[in-house]
């Protein structure tokens, strides 16, 4: 249902005529549905005023950031946060940065690298919001998920402004849990339907030491950038192993020794995506690399704080790899390839090559848990991909999965996806079936996948969390205006 004239005027009075539109012609830019309106609030006060109006008019809303596809029901008010794109503060002393939702990771990362810091850029890519929660390539150094959010400013579904942690008692962002209210469990919930309703308007994210350069010495033109030199005390390698067990053993040893700046459990197909500039080249390189690797593997970046530190880390790395019969991929030892992988995999700027370039879509199953166990699950999911590959319905990546350890590597994320052409109905259905079956298998084998469902099935297995969560959401959102949560991408 379209906004009434009175409703439109009320929103317009908040954001200005230029920042609201109910023109149906531009809505497909966001999603193929009829939104009630697109609204562009410029600050927290405007978000709050809009949310209060949504409650007054009983209109559902959802915030959106840089714009990945989502599922948007008809008649929703879309709060496009594009105008909220400011870095509020970079606090070097206390090692955090405060950002608005539309600051993308590439912007914040470039700013903090100049100051000798880095932060947890999520695997979705550096084109996404720096506020986004989740995991990424840098998890061994930066950890992941809710560990990286400090104080948060949140407009609740009813339009109250809640400031968590230190921000709740003083104008400080250094802690998410106090002094002041800690509502971490609500603000960072992840299990469907527990995606936090309301709108996150500012967040402090942790910064970490960065041993690399203030900026990479990039040369050449897109899509083939190279580095003019490998930055001092940095190295990138890809190691393959004769078995999953040996790979896992090396991975956990490296995690425990805390020597890797990054350990990313790429498969050969994903390395091929990263280092190639088009689909055709990718197929050729993948075929070559498939012969070059001896089995599963991972990608490693070492960053030394000094020459000695670098040499020590390198020595430990080589020893652990040797003990587990690992083999370095010659392709990545080429300084041109090594250089661009260093840059792309710390700036997380090739995620789209890995996922969308091939066919335009991918469906994924991410599993959190103990890495050695989740890898076992992923092997099964990989085997289930093989018939789809044989039929030509999905891209041939050898049935591979990927993943990485968080911090010391015991806990980690393992993920597997199918890349396909979404315009091919048969492929789409086959991939959806695969995702459903393998997510169900994850559930029955007691793994945790965010694609699991339905809630009435998984809820009882998880202490009926869904019932409790629904009660919380009802208390926060009595008018039911924030159905899809405030997760930002």
């Amino acid at each position, binding site marked *: 249902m379209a906004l009434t004239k009175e409703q439109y005027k009320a929103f317009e009075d908040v954001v200005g005529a230029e920042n609201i539109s109910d023109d149906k*012609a*531009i809505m497909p830019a966001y999603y193929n549905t009829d939104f009630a309106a697109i609204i562009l609030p410029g600050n927290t006060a405007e978000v709050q005023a809009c949310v209060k109006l949504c409650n007054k008019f009983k209109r559902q809303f959802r915030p959106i950031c840089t*714009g990945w596809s989502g599922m948007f029901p008809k008649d929703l008010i879309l709060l496009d946060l594009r105008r909220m794109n400011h870095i509020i503060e970079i606090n070097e002393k206390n090692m955090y940065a405060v950002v608005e939702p539309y600051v993308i990771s590439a912007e914040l990362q470039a700013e903090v690298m100049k100051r000798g810091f880095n932060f947890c850029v999520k695997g979705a890519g550096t084109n996404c919001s720096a506020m986004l929660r989740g995991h990424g390539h840098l998890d061994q150094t930066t950890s992941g998920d809710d560990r990286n959010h400090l104080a948060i400013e949140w407009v609740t579904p009813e339009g109250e402004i809640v400031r968590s942690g230190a921000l709740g008692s003083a104008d400080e962002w250094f802690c998410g849990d106090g002094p002041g209210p800690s509502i971490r469990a609500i603000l960072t919930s992840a299990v469907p339907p527990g995606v936090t309703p309301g709108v996150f308007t500012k967040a402090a994210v942790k910064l970490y030491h960065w041993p690399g350069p203030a900026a990479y010495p990039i040369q050449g033109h897109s899509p083939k950038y190279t580095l003019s030199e490998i930055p001092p005390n940095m190295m990138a390698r890809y190691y393959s192993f004769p078995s999953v067990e040996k790979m896992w053993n090396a991975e956990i040893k490296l995690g425990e020794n805390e020597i890797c700046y990054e350990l990313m459990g790429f498969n050969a197909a994903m390395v091929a995506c990263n280092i190639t500039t*088009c689909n055709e080249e990718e197929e050729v390189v993948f075929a070559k690399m498939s012969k070059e690797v001896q089995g599963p593997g991972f990608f490693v970046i070492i960053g030394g704080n000094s020459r000695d530190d670098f040499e020590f880390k390198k020595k430990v790395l080589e020893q652990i790899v040797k003990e587990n019969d690992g083999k370095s991929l010659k392709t990545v030892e080429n300084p041109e390839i090594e250089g661009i992988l260093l840059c792309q995999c710390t700036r997380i700027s090739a995620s789209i090559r890995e996922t969308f370039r091939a066919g335009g879509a991918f469906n994924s199953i991410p599993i959190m848990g103990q890495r050695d166990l989740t890898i076992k699950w992923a092997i099964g999911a990989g085997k289930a991909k093989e018939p789809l590959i044989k039929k030509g319905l999905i891209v041939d990546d050898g049935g591979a999965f990927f993943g990485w350890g968080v911090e010391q590597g015991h806990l980690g994320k393992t993920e597997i996806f199918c890349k396909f052409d979404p315009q091919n109905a048969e492929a789409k259905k086959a991939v959806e079936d695969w995702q459903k079956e393998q997510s169900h298998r994850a559930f029955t084998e007691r793994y945790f996948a965010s694609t699991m469902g339905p809630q009435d099935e998984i809820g009882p297995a998880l202490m009926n969390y869904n019932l409790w969560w629904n009660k919380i959401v009802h208390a926060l959102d009595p008018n039911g205006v924030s159905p899809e949560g405030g997760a930002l991408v």
Partner: protein
Amino acid sequence: MALEQYKGDMEMCCRCSACKFIPMQKIKGSEFSYACPSIARYNYHAYSAGGRMNIGAHALKNGMNYTPKLLDVVYNCQLCGACGVSCNYAMDMEVLEPITEFRMKCNEDGKTDTKLDKVIDGLKKTGSMVPVKGKRGDWATGLKIKDATKEKVDVLFHVGCLTSYDPAMQKLAKSIAAILQKAGVNFGIAGDAETCCGGRAYQMGYKDAFLAQAKKNMEMIKKAGVKTLVTGCADGYQAFKVLYDQFDLKGDLEVLHITEFIDRLIKAGKLKLNKKVNLNVTYHDPCRLGRLGEPWIHWSGKKIPGDRFVFDPPKEYRRGTKGIYQPPRDVLKSIPGVKLTEMTRIMDYSWCCGAGGGVTDSNPDFAVWTAQKRIEEAISTGAEALVTACPWCEKTLNEAIKASGSSLKVYDIVELVERAI
């Protein structure tokens, strides 16, 4: 090509927003990170390339839904192509072409911008995109320049509409003539026989008007027996080199921008830059000399059925890699006393000056807003002057300076070369 032929490309868009920003590796901070003036100014996702692609894909399935807002989206775009460079870092798909075709489709359906209609009416009557005062070749009076339609020349200097008719821009034509004369080049102009290249008409969505101009020009060029054409205008350069080739009109005509030609002359020892020009400068890459000056690639083929967006024969995308970036820089470096400091957004991911796509005519405020952002970026380098290689850039950048009260100077590269000879 019609919009339908880009259906697959438009459907490939995953709304990742890479098109809004310069290539991710090149982002140096929160300033100067945007590539697309349209999304930076108007904010709605619809104004980004991703938004335009999704609207296009939707229109092919459901029909065109013409509304004032849609036309505002369509015409508030410089078609500068920065979106495509950023997208094509990762994706294999056409970006600027479907956006251009969408505008062409609007034009075919009569959904034009009245201000642009007026410009095209003027073009049809006068052969010029700018108001005509006097004759096209009046600026050359007394300069002893050959008439290429009457005398045999090695090089035809295509002057262009703005440089020919705008009194403030005629200095560029004179500079180019002086440089070519100094180097002893056997060149000429077509004078009144020259007509608009049609490039800006194409950008505005008037394909027929463009084709009419292109045919007139090529007829004159063939008649004159010209083998090499040099232009000082980036729009003209792209029209002759890329668009004429796209429509199989170029033949074997060699098309060079004046910066390429001067670079050759310097490297061949035919032009000596001896006089010192003490100036700290930064260089603005015109879109249609840089990323959009990349040669056209003729291709036709079919998508190979299956999991990937690949074609038989394989499709080579124009990703902006082969634009003209180094010659103007080499020329600047050859001028004694000139110190070049680069801006953040350069070469294939350069920020547009604002003048493209007919925006200077349809929405001059947006053109100046875009140019002001470039001025801010130029000032951030500490340069005293912003050097460019296109009269449209120089004009728009100067208007932004006037509006903002900045003391930054704007020069075309040929002005500095002339000072140095």
